[in-house]
């Protein structure tokens, strides 16, 4: 179906990434947002608070991020599309409710505009050090989907994708921005509502008497009903059966966790998304995401000027990770170079996926500013030399 025009600000704009992300969420049909102020993400909810009254949306600034991250789930079970927005410390507080959304299969979107950490860290400066937390931060086994935009235009586009993926797979979807992307201002083109594809909730067509809220379809995803429609839903964070009833034994646990994990793992090929440039014949491939992908592009240029055949792979969907493609490339290239604004997170995935078939070089950065492109170039050149 197409986007509801009331939320689509069609036209050419000059927006920062945070405002663009907000516009993407509105275009995707988000009509409930709960947040708590935290730098450098706050502009997203500030814009939501200003824009929602004109389209029937409800924004509430909750008392903390714990509350915000579960208020949105209440709103989803009432039938709305909903999001929350945060950064570093707030993201840590939300972890329990990422797990709740995972086990109750509540489609919702979390924006994390990453800053330097740990703890209060660098509130106003960028980081990319929550990438593993995004994947593993809540206790227990579960899967999420995470995306990472590199520009304000992509913040808009990816916000829409995030809501669509959440509805399709009934998982929490995390938009892993960073302070640079959130605060950089560029041209953003918002298309007409009728050209924006929006995924509707998987509403059940069954009558209440025939409906089991956690009975999966062929893609392992159950159809949904909302409160107030006579379905007498039973939604619990306890391990549950297809009726939603708690069942405290290993068999029920195995059945549920197996499905929650496999609905994403078995669909990895459908969900993964990455962009490649100059991969053909490359000796070294730079793997990066978010703002670092733009810095890495300059680093690759500098290395190419020194004669290195270097290609680039940019992760758009970060989780699930495109391990199949990394393994394919691993047997063709002499090294992967992985710059990221952390001390080595996604590089661990690259190493895991490469299965020792090639060198994997970490180019860490503690955050606070982006890499110096020359540092990335030097790492590429060194990796090429070592391999030849």
């Amino acid at each position, binding site marked *: 179906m197409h986007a509801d025009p009331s939320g689509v600000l069609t036209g050419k704009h000059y927006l920062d990434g945070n405002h663009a992300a907000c516009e993407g969420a509105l275009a995707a049909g988000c*009509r*409930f947002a*709960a947040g708590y102020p935290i730098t450098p993400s706050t502009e997203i909810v500030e814009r939501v608070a200003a824009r929602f*009254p*004109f389209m*029937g949306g*409800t924004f*509430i600034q*909750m*008392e*903390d991020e*714990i*509350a*915000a991250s*579960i*208020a*949105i*789930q*209440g*709103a*989803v*079970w*009432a*039938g*709305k599309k*909903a999001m929350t927005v945060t950064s570093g410390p707030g993201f840590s507080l939300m972890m*329990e*409710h990422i797990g*709740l959304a995972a086990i109750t299969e509540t489609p919702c979107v979390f924006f994390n505009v990453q800053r330097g950490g740990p703890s209060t860290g660098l509130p106003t400066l960028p980081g990319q050090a929550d990438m593993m937390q995004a994947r593993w931060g809540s206790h227990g086994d579960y899967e999420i989907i995470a995306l990472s935009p590199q520009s304000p235009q992509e913040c808009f586009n990816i916000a829409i994708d995030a809501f669509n993926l959440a509805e399709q797979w009934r998982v929490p979807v995390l938009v892993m921005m960073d302070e640079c992307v959130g605060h950089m201002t560029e041209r953003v083109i918002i298309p007409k509502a009728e050209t924006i594809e929006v995924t509707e909730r998987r509403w059940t067509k069954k009558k209440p008497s025939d409906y089991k809220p956690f009975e999966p379809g062929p893609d392992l995803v159950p159809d949904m009903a*909302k*409160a*107030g*429609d*006579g*379905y*007498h*839903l*039973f*939604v*619990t*964070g*306890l391990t549950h059966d297809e009726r939603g*009833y*708690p069942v405290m034994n290993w068999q029920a646990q195995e059945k549920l966790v197996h499905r929650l994990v496999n609905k994403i793992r078995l669909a990895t090929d459908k969900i993964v998304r990455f962009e490649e440039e100059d991969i053909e014949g490359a000796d070294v491939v730079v793997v990066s995401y978010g703002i670092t992908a733009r810095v890495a592009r300059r680093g690759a240029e500098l290395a190419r000027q020194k004669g290195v055949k270097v290609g680039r792979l940019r992760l758009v969907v970060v989780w699930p990770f495109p391990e199949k493609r990394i393994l394919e490339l691993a047997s063709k290239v002499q090294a992967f170079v992985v710059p990221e604004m952390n001390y080595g997170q996604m590089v661990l995935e690259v190493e895991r996926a490469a299965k020792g078939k090639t060198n994997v070089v970490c180019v860490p950065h503690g955050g606070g500013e982006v890499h110096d492109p020359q540092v990335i170039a030097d790492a590429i050149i060194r990796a090429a030399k070592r391999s030849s």
Partner: protein
Amino acid sequence: MNDKQENPVNPYLRLDRMPSIWCPGCGIGTSVNCFARAITQSKIDVKKLAIVSGIGCTGRVSGYLNFDSFHTTHGRPIAFATGLKLANPELHVVVYSGEGDLIAIGGNHFIHAARRNIDILVVCVNNFVYGMTGGQVSPTSPEPATFTTAPYGQFEEPFNLAYLADSCGAVYIARWTTFHVRQLAKSMRDAFGKKGFRFIEIIAPCPTLYQRRNRLGDGLDAMRYYKEKSVVKNGAETKSLRIDFQSEITVGTFVDRERPTFLEAMNNRFQKALGDKYTPYPLGPSHQPKSQPQAQASA
């Protein structure tokens, strides 16, 4: 027993989940029976009724009631209920949980939902103890009762929940014990017919973990205590409602007032600021004018 006559509360219970996990003599089941009776006696549209619980013994209530049931995380049912209610004001949203869940780990959400006057009914079963985890001290535990985590006796100041709710702006506040089943059911019925943040505290026994450890007998002894030591004082100053160890328990309806709910206040503000450009958000059944009969207590 007469097999042909069905208990009138049965349609509101998930009978396929019985028996419940609650111990013999526990007060939670009694409170649920009162709640279901209140439903039968009210005109509330049960299709639009949603029950939200947190974690703990009382947190299991949502799962035994046959409405839209949400069993959320520890301490957070009010925050979940806030989203549920604001996103669909047509729903009657009831939060049903224990004092550990609502007032200790969830205290922040309790005070802010009351301050905002979120249109929800909060039912708090207060049994002075963490039951599910095995008898630990709770924010209402009185001195000198002992608990697994206060083996030499509790020494902290207990929370006076009615006073807390009052000071945060709750529009309806009542307290009953599980001995007062008729009064409690009537109080619940009354609360269904009102709008805004409504709070009912239910003093309930935990024979297994609170009473046994403190040599207070069984469930029946608790009923005797409630019967002998409860005093009805409607309209009592909430400041005076402190409960000490085996002390007198003041029960009744203490607060019944009106002020704009969150959504009413939001609509008023946006209309003032934005004029015709703002389409008022629909407020749901509890906000209908008084002239229309709405879940009025029939008897």
